[in-house]
């Protein structure tokens, strides 16, 4: 009880989310919530076949249905200007309504626009499409032999290939991760509103307003300045809003043709086929070691699925090149084109999948060696970057192992599987390591001090949930010594100073640095004005008043220094799981979880903790429940809703612990902060699988670990 109390107290430490009040009162406006005057509604109709061509479309009934303004199909849709140029690559993004070809089931074949949502939704059911069907493939497992090397992709070989095979102790296993779908709670949405023929405003669910601006400008051949993208609140994304999707292009097209603002909100079912997913991936891991546990060879192969029209590759096997010190490492990655829509990065893209093979493999090797899995990892700890030999900018992974082991009670783990029970449930402990590159790009921030001593911060970046505005406020407050409640943050608008897309765990590092640098410059200016080195005893407001200045502002661009390139920069995580498995039903319960992050300075403790536990929960979904299932006879998803695609719910999740090493990285940025969004999830699924093995003696290598696989 003492412990629980303590844990709860730590969860409330730090600054409350600066936009929290708007979120708890329902005043935070997401993209579908700008009910512009004259708004009309778009609803898509999707293909019911998986491959082939459209033979005929009868849209008459839909066109004549009440309130319908237009029905667009490939037959009558206005041409998208940017799609008329000959493609520069043999493959590329799906182009909506461009021709009569069907590449995947659910592919949009028509867009209905009506004066109300209900009318558009009904009319969309009236569209009759006849098809010429062609054969198709949607099953990765039976098509692995059709895999090809990605363009520009090369197999990686360090030292000797397949060295694990001749090692004194070795394991060789295959692992499957099925398709996982981001499924943010907010449905993907766009409202497009043209002002004349060459200018428009969109309220869009996007992780990057400038990326969306660029994509729409290219598609419609506009000056990017004339595309205003607004997205101050994003209801989760996890990668699904990194790029501009075809429903967005369709809505912009319809709004132009109709000269009316068009709102298009995807249905939950469409969220499974229109905005990407984590690709179904097969992996094979070979690990060889000396009897004392020194790795001799790592061979990691993976085959991931992509669509017929576009290649999507991810760094699934890269983690095996980067994690451990090992003289011989080789990796192979193959792409299998199937009749599915294109995958897209999902939280921890590549590494989250690769870590299943590597970290389950390490657990299997630890058993083969009769070694503690943490000891095995410490023995093979990489002191310098195994790929480049560069020193790390900072790495406290060994501290993280220790912190997590103490917190989960690792000493209570019995190495022998299926040997411990509690109240009739089998008990198991497992752990898994995660890593992800720590990045810093370029960003521009405007900082404006007003006469009343309050501070405004402005930049284009969006916040999909981690608390970007809160982190910015924390950083500015620290540098300027201005109280957090005197700072206001304006983000999520392409008209603001440029900053990058929110993704790849890079925003706090990138935008936070620009906030830091802007505040430092502002402080310098204030010092100059006050005429004293430290600004004397005058408050900022008094300095401005003394000089009759209504405000003082700076706009500062900040980016990584060349010095930083000398170092290998990564964030690290270690996830510990204690699971209970019911011996009769095979139900797996997470009893306790501890996630430790080594990601530099924590600039925003409250939101950082939430981000880590949120990642642990997403990883729990990967490990125990998430799987998009296609009926391969039809090539159609059978579980495209929340009743059948299971994500973790409240009853699945106990109190979770998030711990931080919290030691600054001296090289990456002024705050010493590295990213944590990806590492929060990377390694979790492996920790679960390892804990389930410890509990049951059953090694489930095809995720998710559902009860049927344990009984």
């Amino acid at each position: 009880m003492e412990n629980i109390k303590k844990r709860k107290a730590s969860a409330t430490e730090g600054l409350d989310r600066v936009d929290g009040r708007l979120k708890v009162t329902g005043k935070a406006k997401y993209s579908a919530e700008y009910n512009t005057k004259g708004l009309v509604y778009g609803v898509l109709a999707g293909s019911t076949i998986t491959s082939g061509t459209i033979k005929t479309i009868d849209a008459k009934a839909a066109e004549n249905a009440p309130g319908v303004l237009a029905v667009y199909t490939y037959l009558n849709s206005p041409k998208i200007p940017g799609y008329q140029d000959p493609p520069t690559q043999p493959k590329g993004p799906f182009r909506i309504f461009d021709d009569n070809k069907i590449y995947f089931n659910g592919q949009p074949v028509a867009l209905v626009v009506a004066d109300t949502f209900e009318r558009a939704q009904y009319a969309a059911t009236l569209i009759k499409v006849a098809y010429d069907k062609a054969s198709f493939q949607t099953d990765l497992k039976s098509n692995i032999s059709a895999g090809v090397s990605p363009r520009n992709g090369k197999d990686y070989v360090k030292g000797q290939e397949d060295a694990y095979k001749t090692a004194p102790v070795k394991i060789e296993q295959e692992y499957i991760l099925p398709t996982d779908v981001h499924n943010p709670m907010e449905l993907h949405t766009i409202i497009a509103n043209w002002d004349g023929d060459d200018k428009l405003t969109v309220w869009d669910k996007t992780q990057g307003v400038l990326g969306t601006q660029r994509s729409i400008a290219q598609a419609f051949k506009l000056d990017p300045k004339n595309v205003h993208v607004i997205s101050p609140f994003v209801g989760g994304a996890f990668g699904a809003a990194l790029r501009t999707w075809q429903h967005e292009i369709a809505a912009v097209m319809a709004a132009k043709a109709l000269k009316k603002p068009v709102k298009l909100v995807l249905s939950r079912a469409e969220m499974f086929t229109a905005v990407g997913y984590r690709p179904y991936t097969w992996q094979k891991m070979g690990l060889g070691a000396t009897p004392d546990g020194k790795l001799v060879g790592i061979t990691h192969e993976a085959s991931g699925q992509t669509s017929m029209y576009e290649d999507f590759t991810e760094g699934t096997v890269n983690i095996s090149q980067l994690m451990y010190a090992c003289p011989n490492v080789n990796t192979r990655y193959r792409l299998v084109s199937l009749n599915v829509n294109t995958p897209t990065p999902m939280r921890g893209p590549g590494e989250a999948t690769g870590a299943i093979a590597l970290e389950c493999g390490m657990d299997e090797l630890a058993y083969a060696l009769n070694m503690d899995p943490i000891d095995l990892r410490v023995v093979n700890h990489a002191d310098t970057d195994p790929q480049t030999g560069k020193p790390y900018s900072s790495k406290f992974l060994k501290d993280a192992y220790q912190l997590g082991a103490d917190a989960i009670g690792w000493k209570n783990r019995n190495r022998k599987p299926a040997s411990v029970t509690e109240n009739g449930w089998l008990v198991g402990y497992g752990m898994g390591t995660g890593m992800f590159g720590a990045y810093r790009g370029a960003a521009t921030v405007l900082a404006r001090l007003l006469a009343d001593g309050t501070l405004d911060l402005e930049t284009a970046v969006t916040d999909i949930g981690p608390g970007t505005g809160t982190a910015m406020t924390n950083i500015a407050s620290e540098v300027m010594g201005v109280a957090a409640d005197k700072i206001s943050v304006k983000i999520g608008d392409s008209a603001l100073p440029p900053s990058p897309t929110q993704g790849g765990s890079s925003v706090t590092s990138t935008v936070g640095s620009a906030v830091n640098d802007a505040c430092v410059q502002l402080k310098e200016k204030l010092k100059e004005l006050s005429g004293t080195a430290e600004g004397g005893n005058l408050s900022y407001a008094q300095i401005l008043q003394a000089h009759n200045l209504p405000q003082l502002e700076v706009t500062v661009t900040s980016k990584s220094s060349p010095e930083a390139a000398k170092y290998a920069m990564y964030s690290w995580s270690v996830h510990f799981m204690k699971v209970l498995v019911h011996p009769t039903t095979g139900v797996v319960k997470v009893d306790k979880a501890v996630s430790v992050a080594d990601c530099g300075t924590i600039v925003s403790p409250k939101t950082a903790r939430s981000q880590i536990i949120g990642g642990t929960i997403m990883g729990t979904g990967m490990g125990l429940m998430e799987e998009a299932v296609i009926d391969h006879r039809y090539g159609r998803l059978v579980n495209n809703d929340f009743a059948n695609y299971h994500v973790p719910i409240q009853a699945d999740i106990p109190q979770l612990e998030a711990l931080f090493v919290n030691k600054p990285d001296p090289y990456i940025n002024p705050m010493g902060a590295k990213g944590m969004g990806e590492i929060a999830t990377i390694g979790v699924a492996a920790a679960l699988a390892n804990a389930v093995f410890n509990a049951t003696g059953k090694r489930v290598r095809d995720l998710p670990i559902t009860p049927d696989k344990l009984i």
Partner: protein
Amino acid sequence: MENNNNLPEPDTRPDVKDPSRRDFLKKSALITAVALTPAHAVKAAEKHMDERIAEAFEKMPLSLEINGAPHNLMVEPRSTLLDILREQLDLTGTKKGCDLGQCGACTVHVDGHRVISCLTLGIMVNGKKVTTIEGLAKGDQLHPMQEAFLKHDGFQCGYCTPGQIMSAVACIREGHANSEHEIREYMSGNICRCGAYPNIVNAIQEVKEGGLPV
């Protein structure tokens, strides 16, 4: 794998005469009005008239109280309470996450009980009192549950939050917040993809233990 194209497939035959209600209206309600009109005029006016008549026939009166304010609306019977709130009344605090009653983002209170507004037709709440997230605070003074969500960071992106808070308030009122376990069970209809579950439980427990009226 060879595709089993011989399996049954959806009926894609061209529509046989659509026996929709609209056609019925055309044939019945309009029939006397157009009986004396020249044929070409009927054809020209048909679609437009059809709209007008449909409007009158297909909409129903809906009187309800939302956050203490009376509303008298004309709505289509098929319109959900969720879409009426969001699209007609601009009360966008209530969220659409699935439109299938599976995620809880659209939870509101109807006569004090939590209800999934995407599975509730507007006309079903005729004469009732609806409370949405916008009606929970008293002016600038937040409801204790809103305060607790802020303090415990019971959210990240904030999209499921209004539904979580409305559900959380009801969870305490129902007497289903007596332990962490019970809260988890009775809050399991509200999905949070960002994964704020433990924080939400802690917020609810604090409100419950604080004993403030909810």
